[in-house]
C-alpha cells in the first residue's frame, strides 16, 4: 500500500495499516544503523529543518541522525517556547523558514496544536516531534516497534502506562496507537494527573492503584514525572510519588514474568523508576532509543514520497 499522509501531525490521523507500514519500513531501515557506512542516498538533495522550540536532546538528535543517514541535509534551529517572547509569531517564523524551501519541517513546540497551525500555513511536510500535552507520534511509533520486536505482535497486549497522564503527549499518542493495533491500555497515576475523559480516547481502563494496573501486564511503561511542571498543587512530594507510583523490583513482580519495562526518557532514577528496574533484565529502554532512529527514518522517507504518489 502507499502512504498518503503529507504530514505526521499525530497518531490520531493514522490507520492501523499506516502504522503497520511505518513499522515495517522502520524495520527495513534499522539494519542501516548497524552498518559500517551508515548512510544511504534515499533523501539526497532534500532539506529537513528540525525546529525545536522546546528543550529536547534525544528526539532532536534522533531526527537529525535519521535525516543524515538518509543523506538529507538536516538543519537545526531552536527557540524559546513562545515565539511571542521573541516578538515574532510562529506563522512568521514558519514562513521565513519556508522561503528557504525546505522539504520537511520537524517541529517540537510547547503549545498543543502548533504543528496543525503550521500545516495550515506552509506548503512543505510537517512532522510533529511533540506538541504540548497533545501528541508525540514518533515516540509512540518507536514504542510500538519495540513492543513488536519483543512480543511479536501488538494485538492483545496488556500495556500499563503509569505517571502524569494529564501532561503526557507520549501517553496520548500511545493510547491512539495501541488501541488502533488491538492492545489494551491500563493507566495509573496520582488523582491530580489523570485527565477528564481519558477513557474515551481508546481501549483504556484507569486504575487507582499502580499494582492493579501492572498486574499481569505485558508491557509496563513509566512516564517521566516532570520536575519542572510538578507544582505543589499536584503532588505533595517526590518521596510519596515514588512510594505509590514508582516502579521497583517488588511491584514489577506483579506483571507477567516476561513483561518488558519501557520509559521514554529522560528518567528520574529513584522517582518513577528504580535503577534496579531501569537497568534490570526486563528493561528495553535503550532499544526504544535505537528504534527511534529507524522510525524517524521511516517517517521522513514516507512523507517525502507522498507528493509523487499524489501526483500519479
Amino acid at each position, binding site marked *: 500500500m502507499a502512504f498518503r499522509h503529507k504530514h505526521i501531525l499525530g497518531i490520531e490521523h493514522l490507520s492501523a495499516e499506516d502504522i503497520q507500514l511505518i513499522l515495517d519500513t522502520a524495520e527495513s531501515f534499522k539494519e542501516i544503523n548497524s552498518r559500517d557506512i551508515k548512510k544511504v542516498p534515499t533523501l539526497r538533495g532534500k532539506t529537513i529543518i528540525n525546529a525545536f522550540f522546546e528543550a529536547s536532546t534525544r528526539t532532536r538528535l534522533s531526527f537529525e541522525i535519521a535525516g543524515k543517514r538518509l543523506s538529507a541535509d538536516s538543519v537545526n534551529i531552536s527557540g524559546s517556547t513562545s515565539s511571542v517572547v521573541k516578538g515574532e509569531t510562529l506563522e512568521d517564523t514558519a514562513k521565513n523558514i519556508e522561503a528557504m524551501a525546505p522539504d520537511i519541517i520537524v517541529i517540537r513546540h510547547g*503549545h498543543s*496544536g502548533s504543528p496543525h497551525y503550521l500545516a495550515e500555513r506552509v506548503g512543505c511536510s510537517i512532522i510533529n516531534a511533540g506538541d504540548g500535552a497533545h501528541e508525540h507520534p514518533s515516540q509512540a511509533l518507536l514504542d510500538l516497534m519495540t513492543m513488536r520486536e519483543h512480543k511479536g505482535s501488538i494485538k492483545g497486549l496488556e500495556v500499563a502506562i503509569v505517571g502524569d497522564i494529564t501532561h503526557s503527549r507520549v501517553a496520548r499518542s500511545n493510547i491512539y496507537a495501541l488501541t488502533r493495533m488491538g492492545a489494551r491500555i491500563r493507566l495509573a497515576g496520582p488523582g491530580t494527573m489523570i485527565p*477528564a*475523559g*481519558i477513557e*474515551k480516547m481508546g481501549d483504556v481502563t484507569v486504575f487507582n492503584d499502580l499494582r492493579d494496573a501492572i498486574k499481569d501486564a505485558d508491557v509496563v511503561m513509566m512516564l517521566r514525572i516532570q520536575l519542572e511542571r510538578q507544582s505543589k498543587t499536584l503532588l505533595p512530594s517526590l518521596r510519596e510519588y515514588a512510594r505509590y507510583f514508582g516502579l521497583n523490583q517488588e511491584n514489577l513482580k506483579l506483571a507477567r514474568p516476561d513483561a518488558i519495562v519501557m520509559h521514554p526518557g529522560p528518567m528520574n532514577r529513584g522517582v518513577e523508576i528504580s535503577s534496579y528496574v531501569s537497568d534490570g533484565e526486563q528493561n528495553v529502554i535503550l532499544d526504544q532509543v535505537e528504534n527511534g532512529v529507524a522510525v524517524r527514518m521511516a517517517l521522513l522517507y514516507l512523507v517525502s514520497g507522498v507528493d509523487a504518489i499524489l501526483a500519479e
Partner: protein
Amino acid sequence: MEKLIIKGGRVIDPAQNLDETLDILIENGVVVSIGGGIDAEDAEVIDATGKLVTPGLVDIHVHLRDPGFEYKEDIASGTRSAVAGGFTSVACMPNTKPVNDNHTITSYILQKAEKEGSCRVFPIASITKGMAGESLTEMGELKEIGCCAVSDDGVPVSNSEMMRRAMEYARPFGLAIVTHAEDLALVGSGVMNEGPVATELGLKGIPWVAEDAATVRDVMLSELTGCRLHVCHVSTKGSVDIVRQAKRRGVPVTCEATPHHFSLTEEAVRGYNTNAKMNPPLRSEEDRQAVLAGLADGTIDAIATDHAPHHLDEKNVEFNIAMNGVVGLETALSLSLQLVRDGVIDLHRMIELLTCSPARALDLPVGTLEIGSDADVTIIDPDLKWTVDAQQLASKSKNTPFDGWEMQGAAVCTVVGGKVMFDIAK
C-alpha cells in the same frame, strides 16, 4: 417636524403583549401612535409588509474597546455593528484602557457615542478602581452621570468580602452588580472546557465548577445584601440551576446567555480554532441543553452577545496564547431566530429576550414601543437567507466562529430615535 411611518408590519412588543399587523407613527423620535391605517401626508414611509416590527434590540453585554483598544473596535464601529445586527441599545463593559472607573471616562464614552455612535450606549462602570479588586469606584456619581450598572467583567472580584461590600454599597444607588462569575483559581491556566475534548487536544481545561462556585457565591451575597445581581453569560447546567433556584427563593437575580453558548459546544474547538476560544468557554452538549431550557422556562432573562472584538493578530496564533472572545452583534439575531425554528422558544419569547427583558435587568429606559417612548425599532425579515462572511462584518474585528454559516433571518432596517441608522438595501 420629522415624521416616519412604519407600515404594514407584524408588530410584536412583548412589553405590551402586542402581536398584530399595525402601523407605527413616529414624530420627532418618539412613538406617537400605533394602529391600523395610519397615514400622514408629510411622513417618510417604510413598508414593512411581511416583516416583523419589534422594539429596537437591546444587548446588555458588549465590549466597545474605546478608549484604549481602538485597533480592535471603537464606539463608531461597534455601534455600526450593533445597528447592522438590529440592536439599538448596547451596554458596554468597563474593561477599556483606562478602565471606566471614573467620571471622566464615562463622560468620554457618552460624548463620543452621542457624536459618532449609531445607537444608544449605556456604559457599565467597574465595581473596583482599575478592576483591581481592591477599592470601590464612586458608584453614586457614576450612576448619576449615566452608568447603568457596575461590573468587573473579565476580571471577577475574587475577594468575597469586597464583593459583599460592593453589593451593600451599590444597592441604595439602585445599581445592579453585573458579575462575570468565575473562580479564577479554578480557571487556572485553562483555555477551554475541561472534558474529553480538552484531554484529546492536550489543552488545559476549565472545569464547570469554576463558574458554578462563583455563581453560588454571588447569588448568596445578593441574597444577603438585597442588591440586584445580573449574572453574565451563564454557560453551565449548574449555573442555570443555581439562578433558577435563587429566583424561586425571591433573590433579585437575573442572568443572560450568549448566542455562542446556546449554538456551539466545545466540539467547535477541534482543529485548535481560536475563534472558538472565549471565557467562559464553550461547554458540553449537556450544558448547552441546560442553557436552552433556561431560555425557554424564564430562568434566563436576556440574550446578550458578549461582543468581544479582537484583532486578527491576536487570534492568528497558537490556541494557548490566543485572546478570549468573539464578535457577536451581527449574528445574534439570526442565531436567536434559529431557536424559534428549532422549537426551543417562540417568537414572542425570543423578542422578549432581546428587548424588554434585558432592558429590565439593567433598568434601561428602552425595549418597548409604548406610546411616548423613544422610537427605537427593528424591522426583521425572518426568512432572509444569508451567509456569514467575517470580512463583511461592520465590526472592525472579524473573530467570529460562525464564518461561512448559512443563516436565516436578519434585521433589514434599524431605527434609533426615529432615525434610520441601518438599512440593508443601502
